């Protein structure tokens, strides 16, 4: 009944989502949580021990695995600390903003012989998974094109933007992963375009809030990704795969399936507001996959090696935005 003992490091928004899922998951139990803000800005949990620092929790023998949900700059050190203590690791994306650091961290986990799963939650969304299955089973024939639209409902606070690593590393990295996941192919080259439409302070911070990237995949197939930090109607998450024999599209999810019909028109509900709602199922399924991995000793579906290409693509996209030219995606370490 107790199952795998899991500690959650970082108890902010995403940490609490994972902690709640662990609490509710029959194959695992929550051992402890850590966050420097606990007892200060953050309400400590009432049901499990907590600490302001991660070290003692990682060392706890009851902890078999950790889920790292801290700010990105702390990811790499925590992964290495947990791995060297022999704990399996689930780490939120991105592993690190620097592909070389990320690669080193992946190697450290591999040397320690622990599993490292990356929190590319969208891979566990049933709709995107269905698109992947259709592409890779040949249901739509040879893949010609992917078109990804991914828009946030509102931009994050400007302080967050300043430390986020920029739109490509913070936001579009999910879409880069989706392109790899759905196509089963590597991205070879990117050309990025950006604009500041939403908040001039984002531009002053050297970032963009609206972006389009054109990609070429290994087979010669093409892809486009469009990101906006603001779609006032909600979290807009769509993906379309087009092949020689057909196409498959994943649309948005809504809170209910109703249509309200009145004199002024027919109204359906807006997309679920943001990622916590839209990917609720995906967060549960990625935890289930992580627990399965530990239980069966099988390599995670989305392991450390999968953390690196999206970073490399994001770095190439950023370089392209600056150079104005198409840029090759270089393997981590070649940067």
């Amino acid at each position, binding site marked *: 009944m107790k199952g795998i003992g899991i500690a959650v490091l970082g108890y902010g928004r995403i940490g609490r989502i994972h902690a709640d899922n662990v609490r509710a998951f029959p194959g695992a139990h929550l051992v402890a949580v850590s966050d420097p803000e606990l007892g200060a800005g953050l309400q400590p949990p009432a049901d499990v021990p907590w600490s302001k620092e991660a070290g003692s929790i990682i060392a706890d023998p009851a902890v078999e695995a950790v889920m790292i949900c801290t700010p990105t700059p702390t990811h790499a050190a925590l992964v290495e600390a947990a791995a060297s203590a022999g704990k399996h690791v689930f780490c939120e994306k991105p592993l690190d903003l620097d592909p070389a650091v990320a690669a080193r961290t992946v190697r450290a986990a591999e040397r320690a012989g622990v599993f490292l799963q990356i929190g590319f939650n969208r891979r566990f969304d049933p709709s995107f998974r269905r698109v992947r299955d259709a592409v890779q089973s040949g249901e739509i*024939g040879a893949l010609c*094109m992917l078109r990804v639209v991914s828009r946030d409902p509102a931009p994050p606070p400007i302080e967050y933007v300043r430390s986020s690593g920029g739109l490509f590393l913070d936001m579009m990295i999910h879409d880069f992963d989706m392109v790899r996941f759905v196509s089963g192919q590597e991205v070879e080259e990117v050309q990025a*375009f950006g*604009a500041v439409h939403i908040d001039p302070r984002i531009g002053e911070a050297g970032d963009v809030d609206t972006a389009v990237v*054109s990609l070429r995949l290994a087979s010669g197939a*093409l892809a*486009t990704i469009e990101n906006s930090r603001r779609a006032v109607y909600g979290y807009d998450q769509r993906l379309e795969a087009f092949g020689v024999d057909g*196409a498959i599209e994943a649309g948005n999810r809504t809170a209910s399936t109703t249509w309200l019909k009145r004199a002024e028109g027919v109204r359906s509900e807006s997309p679920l507001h943001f990622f916590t709602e839209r990917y609720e199922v995906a967060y549960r399924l990625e935890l289930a996959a992580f627990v399965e991995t530990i239980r069966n000793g099988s390599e995670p579906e989305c392991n450390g090696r999968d953390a690196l290409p999206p970073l490399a693509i994001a770095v190439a996209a950023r370089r392209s935005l600056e150079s104005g030219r*198409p840029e090759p995606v270089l393997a981590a370490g070649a940067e």
Partner: protein
Amino acid sequence: MRRVPLAVLGAGRIGKMHVEALLTQVPEADVRAVCDPSLDEEWVRGLGIERALHDPAEVFADREIEAVVIATPSPLHAEVAIAAARAGKHIFCEKPLTFDLARAEEVRRERDAAGVILQVGFNRRFDPDIRELRDRVRAGAIGQLEVMEIVNRDPAFPAIEFMRTSGGIFFDFAIHDFDVARFVSGREIESVYSRGAALVDPRIREFGDVDSATTVLRLTDDVLAVIVNSRQSNCGYDQRVEALGSLGMLAVDNRRTSSVVASHRDGILQGKPLENFALRYRAAYVEELRTFCRTVLAGGKAEVGVEDVMAAVRVAIAARQSLIENRSVALAELEGRAA
């Protein structure tokens, strides 16, 4: 009500479509003649049209005919348009008119010298859905325009012989999307980045064409547009436009063959998008001709003119260059190639 006495030049697929639309759905038109070197005269007489002609010169010599609808093979468009202008006829010309900017400039000069109206067949501008999208964008319904997504996929691969002489995917096909981007946004295209691949039929590589293409446009005010094109879409003629702005999004979806939804054990099936351009843009083909006739009757400037062709052709030239050189091409680089 006064009607415009006109002649249709060219009675191929599009020409016949225009004749039938003019007769049945354009009350502003009075079709006096149809002209084609290999004309089916019986067909013309069966429609009750006075004159079945073989030589455009006969049309130009007819003083009563005020306007012509040019639906000849594409390579003849400009030549016929110039002859029509010199004969003082108002002109509706199918797209593309010409892919050659110098030639387009020549048509423009002839039009201005003759003082005739010349409207070009960018039919999508007259599609009720696309027009409503544009009207709402222009009225500020989505606030400041930020991004557009345009999907344009043909249902079936054109004949390889056609492809060889079509001018390529950007001139023959994506040119509609370049025009839609300008039309909907009310902005000019500043730079173009195109990728392409021959993923459906590798034979088209022989003449440097592609069957799948993605284009990113940057327009005035930093508006970005994504255009995706495919020459073969098994799931139908896929025609979608989407505009995102600060206050929301507007989208035009496909029109389906029917609204029947069939739910069975193996899933839920509904009609595919209308199969081809003639069906999807049926209303647009009528509306563009009505607009032309009304402009002729009321006087004034054509709603879509040679200038719009030149703008779209410039984008196609830039797209082609972008594909070859794998770089973003600024329209400003093409300055000086206009005339």
